[in-house]
């Protein structure tokens, strides 16, 4: 029984970075921008937080409030700047979204690993990682949850992920801003004709989405990994987050379930009495499930479940 509970908790912990990424991507895609740079932005968010934390921690005494605030702000700033770059290229310069996104991911992952590696070198440590233990403690002790028996102590970022997903879900469904945002993802020409500022909304959703996704990187380092940065440590979680967007048929509240489910699949091998061999197959499962959902949705053609109609297309008024 305890083992099951432990598994469920670990699934939530593992699913939380995915949830941040998925929520951010949903927000972005609902305005018609397919941001394949999200995996890169999550790396940038993570390393920006680490850089902020590193300089604060090495500067001397650590105040728990600032220990949270400084990495948080630098994480948000880093993800905002990268999202702005993506928005500028795709919205203002109308560059191809796939190409820009993929380039941004190359850039973002490289950016993370480069500064990560450089910080590790700065510490003159022989280990290939960097540990921000004090900062991490501050994160884990703020609104803590869990105890040592059940997977260790974890902090507020776990709740924040759910809260943000619910807020985005609410805004999408129940507010004017959400309605206008969705209309852009479906038919920018209609939105434009109705007097909605398409460019402003696209910038707004991409930047906010990027910042939310960046928090996923921050959570992963500061909370989940106990403040340890390791190059490439974040792995392919960013892509898994994009898969969840499809799995959740572009609904943030479904993404909560999807993230925990995929998080569970990611670590399930630990809890099955199976050999290591099965692990890759279990980790593959989320992607297979996502493909099945994608097929199912397109075959059924239920309009509410299809990707936003103008997803991936740049909008130019003259082309109407």
């Amino acid at each position, binding site marked *: 029984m305890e083992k099951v509970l432990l598994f469920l908790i670990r699934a939530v912990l593992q699913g939380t970075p995915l949830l941040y990424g998925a929520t951010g991507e949903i927000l972005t895609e609902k305005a018609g921008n397919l941001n394949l740079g999200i995996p890169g932005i999550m790396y940038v968010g993570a390393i920006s937080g680490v850089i902020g934390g590193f300089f604060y921690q090495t500067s001397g005494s650590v105040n728990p409030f600032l220990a949270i605030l400084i990495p948080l702000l630098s994480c948000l700033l880093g993800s905002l700047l990268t999202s702005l770059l993506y928005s500028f290229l795709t919205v203002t310069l109308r560059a191809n979204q796939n190409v*820009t996104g993929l380039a941004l991911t190359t850039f973002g992952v490289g950016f993370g690993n480069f500064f990560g590696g450089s910080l590790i070198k700065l510490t003159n440590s022989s280990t290939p990682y960097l540990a921000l233990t004090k900062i991490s403690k501050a994160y884990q002790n703020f609104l803590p949850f869990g105890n040592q028996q059940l997977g260790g102590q974890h902090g507020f970022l776990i709740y924040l992920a759910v809260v943000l997903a619910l807020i985005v879900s609410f805004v999408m469904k129940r507010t004017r801003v959400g309605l206008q945002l969705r209309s852009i993802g479906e038919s920018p020409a209609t939105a434009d004709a109705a007097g909605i500022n398409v460019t402003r909304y696209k910038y707004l959703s991409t930047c906010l989405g990027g910042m939310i996704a960046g928090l996923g990187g921050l959570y992963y380092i500061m909370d989940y990994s106990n403040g340890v940065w390791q190059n490439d440590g974040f792995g392919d979680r960013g892509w898994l987050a994009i898969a969840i967007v499809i799995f959740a048929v572009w609904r943030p509240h479904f993404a909560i379930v999807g993230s925990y489910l995929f998080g569970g699949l990611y670590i399930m091998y630990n809890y099955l009495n199976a050999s290591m061999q099965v692990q890759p197959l279990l980790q*593959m499962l989320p992607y*297979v499930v996502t493909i099945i959902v994608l097929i199912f949705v397109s075959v059924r053609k239920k309009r509410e479940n299809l990707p936003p109609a103008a997803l991936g297309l740049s909008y130019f008024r003259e082309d109407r």
Partner: protein
Amino acid sequence: MSSEITGKKIKEHEPLITISRRKSMAFWVRLAIRAGSVLVALIVCGLITRFVTGDDPISVYSTMLEGNFGDLDKMWYMFYNLAMLLGVALALTPAFRMKFWNIGGEGQVLIGGLATAVCMIALGGRIPDWSLILVMLISSVTAGAVWGIIPAAFKAKWRTNETLFTLMMNYVAMYLIKYFIERVDQSGSHTVGPKLLSHGWLPTVLGEQYLLNIIVIAALTVIMYAYLNYSKHGYEISVVGESENTARYVGINVKKVIIRTMALSGALCGLIGFLLVGGFSHSIDPNIADGRGFTAILVSWLAKFNPFTMVVTSFLIVFMDLGAEEIATKFGINPSFSDIMTGIIIFFIIGCEFFINYQIHFRKKAAKEAE
């Protein structure tokens, strides 16, 4: 008189900057804009490098040159990398010409490599090497084709979003390789190396281990150019990509063309997987494609889907990559530096396309012209 009033009103309502689509632009102007953007990107990269390493700019660029052309080994390695990246880009191009966003190149290469490795282990030593190589070739090409046909068939029948579908297929292939490694090698090394993949190595040409792959890709470049520009299939691909309506009007079976083209695209990716595993590394792990499936998308797109231009664009990216790696080694900084440099250069080239496709008008200028 009244027309004057309305005329003024129009100008007040006009935004400061308006943008319009350009009809056409002379070839040399386009070339100059692109070359200019590369130049600016190189200067920016140089400045960043100077800031990071403290090295003077001239030395930065000469280090980059050294990383690519420093000695014979480096040159061979550069050409090999160029060939492999170009190979994947060539494979993806037919799909892109059809406006089918195949971003599953990585997975198609991986599955081809996996098929190769499976054959090497299952049949290695049991049948003569030449027939083993043949089986490897056929199965890798088939595996890649299947990986391409699956999303294509769903796109043709139900218009399933191919970007997301092919993206997901990458990870399925990646974890299949991880599974394969766990099955074959229990040592926990996460790779299956030349010891286990001891049979079915492709022959070396003139004693150079990279040469065979380079020759194959050089031939493929010419063949792909001919296929796209001079064959009936290539013509059909262009028509479908430009306008499905026109394709139907002249009786082209659009679904068939979509599936056939993706089969080809996937099969060629599979071939690259075969070359990577059988021709050079003789080992398999999820990183054999080294992100080329993604980078190749940029290579192909930047070259406007022209195979010969792709030689230039893939050289540009490989040059930056190896050059930045050399800088990283020389100054002891992290090798991921090269990803940042590559990213910057791509952003500049992507951005410059805007100035080729669009025209910017400023209000003051427009108003003056009107008067």
